[in-house]
């Protein structure tokens, strides 16, 4: 591999890693901080992508679709938390798995009834629909670079929200001791409802942003679910920086795995996870 190819592959890896972070960031909140095993996270991603498809067809603009989509997904998150998840905080993980697995089936069936089983494409917004030539044959789509930029901004905002703001403090306090926070007179139920809604909105936003490059197809949610859990586990439960670092590591491992060890490309990510967990069983950045 010459230096040119190496640099381009490095870019590929970082860019894929940032996209992974975007998808996994919602799970960092719901699973990492709230402690709920949410298998339906991939479904929220899928719902986002389908919203981008239907809403942009309706409104004619991906940006409008994203704004409307975020509002809708926050509403969905609030309703789901109120109706279902708020009953699960004190139950064991098995019941959370059962509920969220059920939700996957429900959402997939609804998707099939409402939009059908065809593969759809979402057009890249015109201002990003060009490429930067890198070599004589290869150029890099600007929309991918734009996505990476959005992911970095989001990572910073999320970090500031959790670590530096009052609401972040309440979230962290609630995560370590719910009863104590409630007895101090804080409305912890409301905080949790907001965090859950934010998690759903992040997953849906990831789906909307990725829709133009990934296309929109049945079962797209399940394909990102496992890798999201890998990101959260490697990064350390509940750590936003951990999730970012883990995403980038996975992006690089996957990219170079595909190029250098194509025979083992399917397992490089999981080998990385196994190695990191042997070295640091709590993940890279677990808060103590």
């Amino acid at each position: 591999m010459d230096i040119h190819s190496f640099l381009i592959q490095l870019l590929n890896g970082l860019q894929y890693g940032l996209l992974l972070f975007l998808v996994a960031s919602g799970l960092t909140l719901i699973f990492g901080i709230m402690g709920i095993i949410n298998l339906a996270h991939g479904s929220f991603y899928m719902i986002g992508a389908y919203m981008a498809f239907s809403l942009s067809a309706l409104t004619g603009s991906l940006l409008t679709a994203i704004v409307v989509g975020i509002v809708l997904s926050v509403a969905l998150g609030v309703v789901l938390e109120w109706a279902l998840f708020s009953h699960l905080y004190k139950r064991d993980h098995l019941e959370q798995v059962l509920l969220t697995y059920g939700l996957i089936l429900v959402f997939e069936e609804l998707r099939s009834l409402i939009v059908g089983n065809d593969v759809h494409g979402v057009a890249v917004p015109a201002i990003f629909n060009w490429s930067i030539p890198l070599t004589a044959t290869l150029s890099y789509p600007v929309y991918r670079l734009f996505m990476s930029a959005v992911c970095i901004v989001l990572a910073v905002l999320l970090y500031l929200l959790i670590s530096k703001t009052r609401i972040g403090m309440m979230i962290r306090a609630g995560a370590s001791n719910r009863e104590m926070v409630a007895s101090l007179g804080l409305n912890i139920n409301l905080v949790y409802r907001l965090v859950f809604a934010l998690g759903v909105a992040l997953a849906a936003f990831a789906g909307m942003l990725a829709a133009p490059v990934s296309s929109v197809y049945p079962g797209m949610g399940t394909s990102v679910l496992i890798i999201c859990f890998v990101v959260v586990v490697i990064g350390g439960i509940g750590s936003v920086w951990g999730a970012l670092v883990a995403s980038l590591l996975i992006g690089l491992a996957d990219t170079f795995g595909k190029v250098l060890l194509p025979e083992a490309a399917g397992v490089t990510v999981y080998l990385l996870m196994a190695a990191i967990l042997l070295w640091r069983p709590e993940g890279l950045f677990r808060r103590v």
Partner: protein
Amino acid sequence: MKEIGFPRRTGATIATIAAIATACALLAASPALAQQGKLKVGLMLPYTGTYAALGNAITNGFKLAIAENGGKLGGRDIEYFTVDDESDPAKAPENINKLIKRDNVDVVVGTVHSGVALAMAKVARDTKALLVIPNAGADEITGPLCSENVFRTSFSNSQMGIAMGKVMADQKKKTAVTITWKYAAGEESTGGFKESFEAGGGKVVKELFLPFPQVEFQPLLTEIAALKPDVVYAFFAGGGAVKFVKDYAAAGLNKTIPLVGPGFLTDGTLEAQGDAAQGMLTTLHYTDDLDNPKNKAFKAAFEKAYKAEPDVYAMQGYDAAQLLIVGANAVKGDLTKRAELIKAMEGAKVDSPRGTLSFTKSHNPIHDIYLRKVDGKQNKYVSVAVKQLTDPPRGCKL
């Protein structure tokens, strides 16, 4: 009512029981009736999940051909038994056994998914049940796993690759890269391409794979750009096909290195692929705009019956029924005359919407493979890539 001495409710209960008993008696008698009268056709196809649309298209095509034949097979009326195979290979042996052992069907038609079809072919081989496969392209089914009672009316995976390899070699392309998911269908398709492209004097410089069903293509596109082949042959389907074609174009590769593949790369996906797919060449045993009288009649009849345009899958289902009609007519509807039935089906020259369809010794289709070009939202006919392509038996002992 009261004078009779039965309270009202008891009377009603007795009536219900009598009705149920009668119904049971009728049900028990029906298999015996059916064996003399109706011919039982088992449809084992995906009616839910990703491939549901394909299962329905095949069913519609099959029933259209039967309807055109007066609703009969070999002069006998038909009773359908339907099983949703869910494209789940784990459930396949149980599902096909339900049709063969419980429902006693005379013939099984199915299915789309190659893994399920492989399991069905194994059961059919053991139980000697007549099986007609209207889609699944796994080479093995008409290769090492072939048996005299199994026919395929669709294609085998390597056929499309063989046809495209020949076309590219004829265009004097020197080097090629193949790319696909690391699974049987992909490896058979790209293997077919390599076989005929290299036989025609070209060289496949690299075979790229990625794990099924991953769709992060960027690293491999970078490799293709570094290798600079004359052509890239790709096998993907569904969402993967859409994303690969779009990523390939977004990376600017389509400006210098043409992307080609089997028809599945651009069939039913053009809406989603949009501009990225324009001008792409693909090979398949069918195109919508195929100019022959049979195809025009088929399209008109299908649109009349179902208010939708037929696709390649509907055509394959249609031909499954056409092949069975030839066989059943030869034995006047008595499918137990197995030797005569199979002889008639082996010798069949089916007038298919795709052109003439006949069968190899291993019961795989012999048909023209067409070169098609994407134009707007359609795959337009360009030329015949290979006339009456007959693939080698690959280990079949028939």
